[in-house]
């Protein structure tokens, strides 16, 4: 089958799973995405109107929804105010949207096949209350077959999805046992069967009846499973983070990614996050950051290490075993780099990020690569100064360490400081790992560190601040040399000032 046939087959729902790898490659050049745009637009314009009628019916059903129940709204507001739980507004829709608009790959290729929830499916629960709640039934191809405004007393069947709007909520009472689930706003819960519900997004609070050990009640997110014996708990699902808070009893929380598990007791919360162990903590106390990904053993999690220019490639031995993951991006000289967005919330600063880079480019071409490397920068910060003495030829491999504080990134290559970037804070800035050339990355760590372990920057900071105002020009061709410094600093250090300009060494 040619690529063109394959794309049409996939768009028509006639491709099988074995074709996904080929589709994944085709998606990289945007052809699949462009074909999908025209395909779905044609389906809408030339369709027989059935989908239009379903959609109109669902809108009219929502408009006819009943007025809010004031008592239930109070309960849900209290739930949202629990301090220990992040009030997430993370939604599935934008994630999918982004995937579609950017690389046109992820969700295209991984449309889930849902249970279809026919009317004859078994009843799992009944709706006790609903504020702007919606029931959704699915067709075999995963598209929405029916959508209606939930009413008190509605049956909730296997394979159904319950959705709540921004300010909505819903309470479901199980018909087979004394279990109730309160779904907060902006949430989606799918009832697989009477013993398993899937929280696709949002947040729920549950009071679960005592369970038989051989068949306990469980709630899954995309990454975790909370198995319940009989307790009161809250569960929140974001695309790559699941947080469980246990009020009474205990819950066994397990990662569906790596099998890690922990028992979370009353008064504790825990998170399932890629790269970090499940660590139950007292409610209200901050979760320490300690992530470690060994790319020699596992692939970069696509939810965490999403590439927006370039690609990961596994490096395999002759037996086909993955030895490492190789990052390949475009050459920086062309205005692009291999970029990966990291996240280190302010509460975890100061932090250290470390990893090892090996220049695959060099090895394959058997010649010396003069300039390559990895950096971590804030994407939208305004930098006040970049102090650097970075040498061109760095040798192979290079070990990188970055100490990140609220206003500086201190960068070390092979145990020698290579640069310091001072920043003026900018709301919404995120850390970006940027890599030039084709590089292999091994073992990446991100962890909180105590302030005393962060190298002292006071002398460097003072040296930068002592530069007269008239020399602080935003001219990359004319850096300001600094005198030799006592601190462990780059030899022949010089400063680039960027007052009032956006630091954008990487265009994307």
């Amino acid at each position, binding site marked *: 089958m*040619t690529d*063109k046939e394959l794309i*049409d*087959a996939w768009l*028509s729902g006639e491709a099988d799973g074995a074709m996904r790898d080929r589709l994944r490659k085709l998606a990289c050049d945007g052809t699949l*995405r*462009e074909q*999908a*745009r*025209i*395909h*779905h*637009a*044609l*389906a*809408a*314009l*030339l*369709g*027989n*109107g059935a*989908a*239009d009628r379903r*959609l*109109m019916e*669902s*809108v*009219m059903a*929502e*408009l*006819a929804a009943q007025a809010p129940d004031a008592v239930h709204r109070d309960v849900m507001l209290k739930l949202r105010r629990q301090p220990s739980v992040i009030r*997430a*507004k*993370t*939604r599935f*829709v*934008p*994630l999918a*949207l*982004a*995937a*579609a*608009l950017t690389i*046109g790959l992820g969700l295209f290729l991984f*449309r889930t096949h849902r249970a279809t929830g026919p009317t004859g499916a078994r009843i799992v629960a009944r709706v006790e209350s609903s504020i702007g709640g919606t029931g959704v039934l699915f067709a075999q*191809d995963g598209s929405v077959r029916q959508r209606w405004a939930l009413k008190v007393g509605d049956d909730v069947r296997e394979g159904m999805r319950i959705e709540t709007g921004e300010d909505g909520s819903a309470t479901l009472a199980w018909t087979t046992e004394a279990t109730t689930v309160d779904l907060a706003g902006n949430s989606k819960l799918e009832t697989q069967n009477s013993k398993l519900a899937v929280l696709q997004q949002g947040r729920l609070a549950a009071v679960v009846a005592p369970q038989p050990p051989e068949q306990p009640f469980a709630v899954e997110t995309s990454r975790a499973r909370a198995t319940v014996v009989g307790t009161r708990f809250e569960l929140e699902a*974001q*695309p790559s*983070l699941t947080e469980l808070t246990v009020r009474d009893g205990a819950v066994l929380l397990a990662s569906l990614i790596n099998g890690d598990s922990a028992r979370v007791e009353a008064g504790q919360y825990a998170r399932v*996050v890629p790269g970090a162990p499940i660590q139950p903590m007292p409610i209200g106390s901050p979760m320490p950051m300690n992530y470690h990904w060994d790319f020699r053993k596992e692939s970069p999690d696509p939810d965490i*290490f*999403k590439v927006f220019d370039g690609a990961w490639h596994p490096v395999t031995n002759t037996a086909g075993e993955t030895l490492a993951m190789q990052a390949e991006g475009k050459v920086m000289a062309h205005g692009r780099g291999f970029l*990966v*967005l*990291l*996240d280190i*919330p302010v509460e975890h600063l100061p932090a250290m990020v470390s990893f090892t880079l090996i220049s695959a480019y060099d090895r394959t071409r058997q010649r010396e690569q003069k300039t390559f490397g990895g950096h971590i920068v804030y*994407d939208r910060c305004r930098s006040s100064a970049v102090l650097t003495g970075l040498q061109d030829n760095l040798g192979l491999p290079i070990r990188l360490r970055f100490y990140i504080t609220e206003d500086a990134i201190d960068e070390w290559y092979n145990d020698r400081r290579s640069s310091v970037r001072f920043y003026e804070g900018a709301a919404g800035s*995120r850390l970006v790992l940027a890599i030039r050339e084709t590089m292999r990355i091994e073992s990446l760590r991100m962890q909180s560190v105590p302030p005393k372990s962060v190298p002292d920057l006071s002398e460097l900071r003072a040296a930068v601040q002592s530069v007269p105002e008239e020399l602080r020009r935003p001219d990359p061709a004319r850096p300001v040399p600094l005198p030799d410094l006592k601190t462990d600093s780059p030899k022949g250090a010089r400063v680039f000032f960027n007052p009032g300009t956006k630091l954008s060494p990487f265009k*994307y």
Partner: protein
Amino acid sequence: MTNQDEIAWVEAVQNGDTEAFEPLMELHVRRLRAFVALKAPIPSLIDEATHETFVYAYRNIAKFKAGTNFFAWLKAIASNILRAEIQRYARQDVQAERYMHEMETTESDSNETLLVSDDLEQLEVCVESLPPNTKKLLKLKYTLGHSSAEMAKILQRSRAWIRTALFRIREELKKCVEQKLAAQG
């Protein structure tokens, strides 16, 4: 249906007649779904974003000035819904996000362009200008919902031919839309 009908329905909804919203939707749902599909080509997203657009339009219909372009208003709402979703996502817990970076419409001209570009009208013109045989192929595929095997049987062609032909038609339509947009400047 005349423009006067649309104005009358809008005014009826503005006066509290919910039922009058149905013919308004019927008038625009096909093109609005196509408009959203060009921006977010995932089946479930097309329906969700279109659904949200209509619900928002209903709840805010008092702000719409009857007699002005209702479909343009719907498109603006749909674009804003898509944009808002992207920005909201970007502001949130980045731990979940990371790669959404590219989607920050404030930073990315191409994405902003994608959201505001009006390629629906161009696509409609391009489809209209297709030769009859090509239109027949599209009708079998998209209106009658035939599979490639069924189409191959009807047209006495191989499945490979059908699939390749459909791919090429979409490719030609894309080029046609791009040329028309470029001609518009």
